């Protein structure tokens, strides 16, 4: 089958690769057949069957995306290729690289293959690079390992050349940097340089951009596309992000519970998914680019236990159109359409029905109705619940081991002002280091800030007595990002939810009843109450975190990245829950997020932060549809869109990294990365360099922007 139809969306054809392998150019470079990976169970637990019958192939110059949620087995499948699975894992099937079987090779032979023919890019480059050696020497080592005759000098030159190729400015100097001296994006570039050092045939990327900010992610995706173009390597990208897939992949393989459930070219799968799971994933994805007032649709239930996968279709228990025999007979991966469309295959008993009846994602997963906020009181007539005025927080930086002296400060938050009205959700968005979380922490401390003023529900935090502060805590609650570290691992769910009630001296005999009531509000029941956080799924844990936060019936809820650690299919469910609770309990929310897509669906107003200041604030609709600040535009354009037609559009990819918050540029802090700045006239540029822009209103609308030239 010919599968590289995805090239039609790429203006430049895949360059004919210089064939190094002994195989004809048409053959796939990597061919995986019926791969099974099993981790033997420990003690009471059964064997964990991570991968159950996976087959795929990639050709030169092709990008295949393997998509799935956590626990789908995608990482195990990838690690099996270079033989990097732990020794106790049982692997069967066949992995052929250029026609040569890799399974069963001994460690020495595999070591020759790794790096030279197959290389990997990991999610966390800080963990994947040796911290005590410079990146240049690590690169040089990679070169010399496989080309032992290279001299040190040549290897060093090659290392610098590789760094230059992956777009690291000032590569000669950067080669002498240690990994921790580089930013996350730079480190990931080094990882890619390392992976391409020996011009491998296949590059496996395991969540290459998950740990990165949106603007840096866009750079890395561009780089991967360039690597494919220049080296002609086949690239397998493992990701959970359907947006990333649409941006760069030619073909996609959807995995669920260790099995491939749908595969095809990106346009085939995105335009007409045939597997209810794929449809669910697409429906559950928040979109930053559509003005949909509706929330993304969640997929109910949780993925099956990999130690005891169901006998039939693994998705049947969560599938909205499952038939009785779906639960007993596993479906085979069969071509769709008559005559079969090239390469599009799906494992679903109901694929023919889906094709025949033209079912789309919206038919299977109706979007949850947004709770009625029918006639809201106009904003200016609602009381202000949170008022932040010129807030600043500088973290001092110290130098010297013995005589520690202050050497400047990280200006995490540098004079921001906003207010939050009753029943309103304000989102603070921005990249990491923008100071969003510091704002939350400053509010939660309920003490006098370093500079400026915070007023919570009419109380100035600088003038609170300890008793007043304690009383105010009842009305101000927080939900944290990482649900696993936000819950005490040694407490049962019931105890966790009871804790705020105990702290605020609720009568003992009412406790159990109230705990059940609160758990029911977030969709959990008695069986969850007895469990501990480790026995819950990510989505359930986040629900417990929310339950703890609403137990005291607060009026103001602060949310710190509430869904960013969750899988796509549960993320939508938690977003819907938050929206529901907000209207039911009359909450006002301050939401901190880097995920602009999620923000668009839940926030009434949005404030964009950059390096400790707000650059744009206003009604969510106008900020998203009519962004005025070049940074907002770049952020929005960097968000991957799960639509192959829209994805390969003209994106504004910001160059470089965000500036050092300890030493921000003078005047406008964005000018060093601003795409508009270089196009301005000399006098206008002078304004940007010398005068920090203030937020100024645009017309009558609720929309203010801090740019001299907006």
């Amino acid at each position, binding site marked *: 089958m010919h599968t590289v139809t995805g090239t039609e969306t790429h203006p430049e054809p895949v360059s004919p690769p210089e064939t190094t392998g002994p195989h004809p150019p048409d053959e796939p470079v990597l061919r995986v057949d019926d791969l099974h990976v099993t981790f033997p169970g420990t003690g*009471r637990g059964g064997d964990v069957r991570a991968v159950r019958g996976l087959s795929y192939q990639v050709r030169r110059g092709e990008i295949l995306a393997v998509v799935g949620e956590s626990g789908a087995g995608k990482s195990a499948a990838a690690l099996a290729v270079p033989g990097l699975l732990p020794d106790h894992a049982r692997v069967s099937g066949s992995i052929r690289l250029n026609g040569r079987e890799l399974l069963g090779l001994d460690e020495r032979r595999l070591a020759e293959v790794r790096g030279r023919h197959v290389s990997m890019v990991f999610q966390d480059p800080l963990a994947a690079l040796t911290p005590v050696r410079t990146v240049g020497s690590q690169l040089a080592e990679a070169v010399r390992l496989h080309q032992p005759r290279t001299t040190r000098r040549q290897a060093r030159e090659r290392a610098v050349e590789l760094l230059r190729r992956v777009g690291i400015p000032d590569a000669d100097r950067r080669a002498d940097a240690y990994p921790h001296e580089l930013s996350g994006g730079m480190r990931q570039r080094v990882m890619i340089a390392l992976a391409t050092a020996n011009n491998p045939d296949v590059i496996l990327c395991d969540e290459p951009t998950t740990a990165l900010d949106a603007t840096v992610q866009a750079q890395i995706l561009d780089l991967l596309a360039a690597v494919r173009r220049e080296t002609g390597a086949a690239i397998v990208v493992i990701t959970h992000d359907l947006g990333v897939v649409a941006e760069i992949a030619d073909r996609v393989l959807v995995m669920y519970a260790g099995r491939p459930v749908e595969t095809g070219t990106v346009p085939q799968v995105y335009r007409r998914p045939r597997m209810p799971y794929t449809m669910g994933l697409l429906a559950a994805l928040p979109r930053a680019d559509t003005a949909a007032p509706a929330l993304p649709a969640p997929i109910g239930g949780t993925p099956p236990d990999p130690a005891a996968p169901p006998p039939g279709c693994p998705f049947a228990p969560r599938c909205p159109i499952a038939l009785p025999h779906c639960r007993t007979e596993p479906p085979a991966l069969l071509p769709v359409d008559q005559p079969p469309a090239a390469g599009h295959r799906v494992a679903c008993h109901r694929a023919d029905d889906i094709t025949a009846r033209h079912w789309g994602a919206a038919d299977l997963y109706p979007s949850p109705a947004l709770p009625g906020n029918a006639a809201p009181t106009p904003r200016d007539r609602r009381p202000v619940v949170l008022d932040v005025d010129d807030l600043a927080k500088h973290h001092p930086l110290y130098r010297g081991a013995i005589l520690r002296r202050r050497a400047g400060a990280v200006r995490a938050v540098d004079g921001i002002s906003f207010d939050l009205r009753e029943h309103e959700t304000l989102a603070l968005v921005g990249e990491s280091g923008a100071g969003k979380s510091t704002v939350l922490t400053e509010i939660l401390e309920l003490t006098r800030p370093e500079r400026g003023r915070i007023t919570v529900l009419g109380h100035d935090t600088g003038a609170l007595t300890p008793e007043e502060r304690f009383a105010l805590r009842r009305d*101000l609650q927080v939900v944290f990002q990482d649900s696993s570290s936000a819950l*005490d691992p040694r407490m049962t769910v*019931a105890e966790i939810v009871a804790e705020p009630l105990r702290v605020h001296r609720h009568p003992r005999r009412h406790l159990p009843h109230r*705990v059940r009531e609160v758990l029911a*509000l977030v969709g959990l029941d008695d069986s969850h109450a007895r469990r501990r956080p480790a026995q819950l799924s990510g989505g359930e844990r986040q629900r417990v975190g929310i339950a703890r936060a609403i137990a005291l019936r607060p009026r103001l809820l602060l949310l710190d990245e509430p869904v960013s650690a969750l899988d796509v299919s549960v993320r939508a469910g938690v977003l819907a829950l938050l929206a529901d609770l907000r209207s039911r309990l009359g909450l006002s929310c301050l939401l901190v997020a880097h995920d602009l897509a999620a923000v668009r669906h839940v926030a009434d107003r949005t404030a964009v932060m950059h390096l400790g200041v707000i650059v744009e604030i206003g009604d969510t609709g106008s900020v998203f549809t009519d962004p005025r600040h070049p940074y907002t535009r770049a952020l929005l354009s960097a968000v991957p869109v799960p639509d192959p037609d829209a994805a390969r559009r003209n994106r504004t990819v910001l160059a470089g990294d965000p500036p050092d918050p300890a030493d921000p540029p003078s005047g406008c802090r964005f000018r060093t990365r601003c795409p508009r700045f270089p196009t301005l006239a000399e006098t206008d540029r002078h304004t940007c360099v010398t005068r920090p822009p203030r937020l100024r209103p645009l017309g009558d609308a609720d929309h203010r922007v801090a740019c001299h030239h907006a």
Partner: protein
Amino acid sequence: MPGPGQSGGPPQADPRLLGRWPALLRAAPHHPRVLTGTALLVLLALLAWLGPLAAPWGFTERDHTSFLAPPSPRHWFGTDGTGRDLYVITLVGLRKSLVIGLLVAVLTTAAAAAVGAVAGYFPGLPDRVLTWITDLALVVPPLLVLTVLFPVAEKGGWLALVLLLAAFGWMVTARMVRGAARTLRRHEYVRAARYLGASPTAIIVRHLLPNLSGLLVADVTVNVSAAIIAETGLSYVGLGVQPPDVSLGTLIAHGTRYATTHPWMFGFCTGLLVLLVLAVNLLGEGLQDALAHDTPARRA
């Protein structure tokens, strides 16, 4: 606020709320190691207090017909160089060691936990003061303290001995607890509790200590045998258990010389110490297991 729990859906029981520590320890009594360890400790205690009653010899009685005699129906554990019945004096020694060992171990760990948790939770002045005291206690030679405290300790009897032993053993663990508490402090669940309005004491008792319980239980376990041995050291300088009074420690110290020639002088007291330590270890391991039942399979 609407409460769906009351109106719709199948009726459900309210969850049982046991409280922080009871919930934590609920599983402990059912753990086989906890059961075995406790049973063994109780047996040892029974033996120590009731055992001597079964023997025809008294504690101060001497059998002038047998010196350094091997075990026999007349002297079950044999006799020592002065004709004392080893069965009786070993069990009396066990009494002392049980009390000293367990008490010192628990006190040492409690002091370490208190100092470490407070220092770790409050950065700034409390941390600096407590860390300074800890470091000072680490570097001051015990002998110096002994010389200063000798008059007090001599009068205080075994209680003073216990306090003194505990005072020498808490520092290293306190530093470990401080480090662990500093890490835990940054965890979001501790921050969440703080933002709920929980007091520092509540946070330390409800969140820090339970999550350090593995470390603390292990520390108690190790401290039991350490305290029993350390007590012999004190008796050299004239503190602690003085003749004619005995403890397992002094018996072992005394019996070591005879270990090869008259093994009963050494074997029985050492054997009992091993049993005691084994019981404490079993109990400790069991507790650790029971406390960690939430963490997924720690053993491969």
